[in-house]
């Protein structure tokens, strides 16, 4: 059974408040569906504004979807609210991008990590809570001796470990990781990615991994969903998507990965690279990617953008072999 199922979920943001007069509605997520099993990692990749973070927040029920339904462990929680929802929240927890902004600077580390226990384990005594915090910090590779310190006394990598400990302490089945390493140095990135892998193997956690960086994703994901302008434009196993991308946007993301050695500069230049001829916008009708797409033709303007049975939404897919 899937620990998380998202069915046909949509969300539109309406401009409100002071800017109501000039604002437009923004369709952030448009009929997105996926499921996630225990022990696996689904990565949602896409650029800023593609709706990947909104999708994660909908799946966590931090936001209420306009339509569609969300199941945690087979139970439809779309309509739940208030206390009932809060009590189920330990099923799915989140690790945020910026370890400098996501920890309360005025709370001691142990208080931050133990916060979830107030709701989910209110029976525990302070001593029991402190013991559990120490254990969880240790699991995340931190010395429990630092639990009475404040966030500013820790480095970025250590803070991210604290963020992971805070999420893990209520024993979730699903972790939502929203760009968990993109604010970190390369060397620290590797430490955090390794830690996430170890935790997944030890606890059978399911990860919903949000990122714009395919070289990070290639390391951790079993399956990949590529989002563009609120829709999934391609999905499949990580191996398939990396080896045989169908959608031109997926290919563009793959091409944007850093090269390994200066000798590859030439290869890339002579390669199939239409990057500079294309524009930057998003089309209002038809395939949203057509303005940037080197293969776009007139029929793309009326394309409905539905995923086909092979898992991509494109009328002019790339040939099977490179």
């Amino acid at each position, binding site marked *: 059974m899937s620990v998380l199922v998202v069915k046909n979920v949509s969300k539109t943001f309406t401009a409100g408040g002071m800017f109501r007069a000039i604002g437009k509605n923004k369709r952030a997520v448009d009929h997105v569906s996926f499921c996630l099993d225990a022990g696996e990692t689904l990565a949602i990749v896409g*650029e*800023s504004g593609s709706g990947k973070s909104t999708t994660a927040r909908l799946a966590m029920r931090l936001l209420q979807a306009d339509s569609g339904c969300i199941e945690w462990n087979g139970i439809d929680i779309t309509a739940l609210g208030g206390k009932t929802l809060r009590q189920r929240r330990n099923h799915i927890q989140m690790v945020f991008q910026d370890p400098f902004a996501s920890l309360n600077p005025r709370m001691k580390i142990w208080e931050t990590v133990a916060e979830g226990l107030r709701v989910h384990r209110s029976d525990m005594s302070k001593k029991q809570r402190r013991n559990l915090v120490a254990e969880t910090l240790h699991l995340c590779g931190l010395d429990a001796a630092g639990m009475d310190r404040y966030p500013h006394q820790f*480095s*970025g*990598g250590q803070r991210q470990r604290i963020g992971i400990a805070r999420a893990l302490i209520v024993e979730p089945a699903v972790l939502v990781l929203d760009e968990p390493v993109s604010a970190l*140095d*390369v*060397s*620290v*990135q*590797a*430490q955090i*990615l*390794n830690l996430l*892998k170890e935790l997944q193997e030890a606890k059978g956690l399911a990860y919903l991994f949000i990122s*714009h*960086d*395919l*070289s*990070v994703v*290639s*390391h951790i994901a079993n399956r990949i969903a590529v989002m563009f302008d609120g829709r999934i434009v391609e999905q499949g196993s*990580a191996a398939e998507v990396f080896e045989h991308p169908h959608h031109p946007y997926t290919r*563009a*993301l793959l*091409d*944007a*990965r*850093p*090269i*390994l*050695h*200066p*000798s*590859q*500069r030439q290869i890339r230049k002579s390669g199939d690279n239409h*990057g*500079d001829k294309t524009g*930057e916008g998003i089309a209002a009708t038809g395939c949203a990617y057509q303005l940037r797409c080197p293969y776009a033709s007139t029929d793309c303007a009326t394309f409905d953008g539905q995923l086909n049975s092979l898992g991509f939404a494109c009328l002019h897919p790339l040939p099977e072999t490179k």
Partner: protein
Amino acid sequence: MLEIHHLSLSVSIEGRRVEAVSSVSLQLEAGRVLGLVGESGCGKSLTAQAILRLGEHQGVEKSGGDILLDGSSLFGVDDELLRRIRGGRISMVFQEPMTALNPVFSIGSQITEVIRLHLDMDKQQANARAIQLLRDVGMQDAEQILKQYPDSLSGGMRQRVLIAMAMAADPDYIIADEPTTALDVSVQKRIITLLLNLQKKRNLGLLLVTHDFGLVAEMCDDVVVMYAGQVVEAGKVADIFDYPAHPYTRALMGCRPEISTAGESLTVISGQVPSPGYWPQGCHFAERCSLARHDCMEKPVTAACWQQGEHIARCLHVDEHVDELGRDSPA
């Protein structure tokens, strides 16, 4: 030529003056791209900012060495000349395009301000030049962009505007401090291509400050690797990638997720960069180095204690590591 000679910088931490950059030397020539590489806290940004004498108001002081622009010291110039050098001869592109632009002035007024500060132009001429600059950085609807404010532009567009501003007075050198780190991967590539095209077309000397060896592989001709305030390795880009001599360079390259096999653990560097004031007496990297010996800890290690042509490394044991590390590329 822009030369840094044995530059040392000190900062004030908790009332104490401590050395944050220690005897750093590098040369940037016109028409070349130099990568200054290292983790956060290695002193690479401080070094880069010192070229424009930024940071002096935040308590960064020069404690030794010199910076020469075409042979004359940048520390000897008066304020008026310094103002003309900043932007006129050497300009800077910052990391955060979201904070480097002033939100209450239009793009046009911010670009023409730079143009009129450095070039003898009236409003109309400056406007025409601003439009040309924006076209050069790939913004086709330049007239429209001039009237807009930073908040209506995306991160990639703002970075283009900042590059246009850096180009405004036709400088000879550009310092780019993590110019793509805050951007999406797909936008990063466009900005890299843009910077490289402009650099070639105008024969600029480009100093790229970064922690990302992928960017170095893509852009640089020469590389200087810094660790805890010191240069630990320097050389031509091909030499550095073919034969990284310093264990730190190797470790930093090895961490990159794109070089390791999917499913396997990534290589990590244990521990963290020691803060200024807490540098060890011997090799600064020794306590994180898996190959460190007893003599590494004893006394300071000289800058070029290993040398092969222009390729230098601050490591006592490069030749002994050769067998262990292999001569081929780290991938």
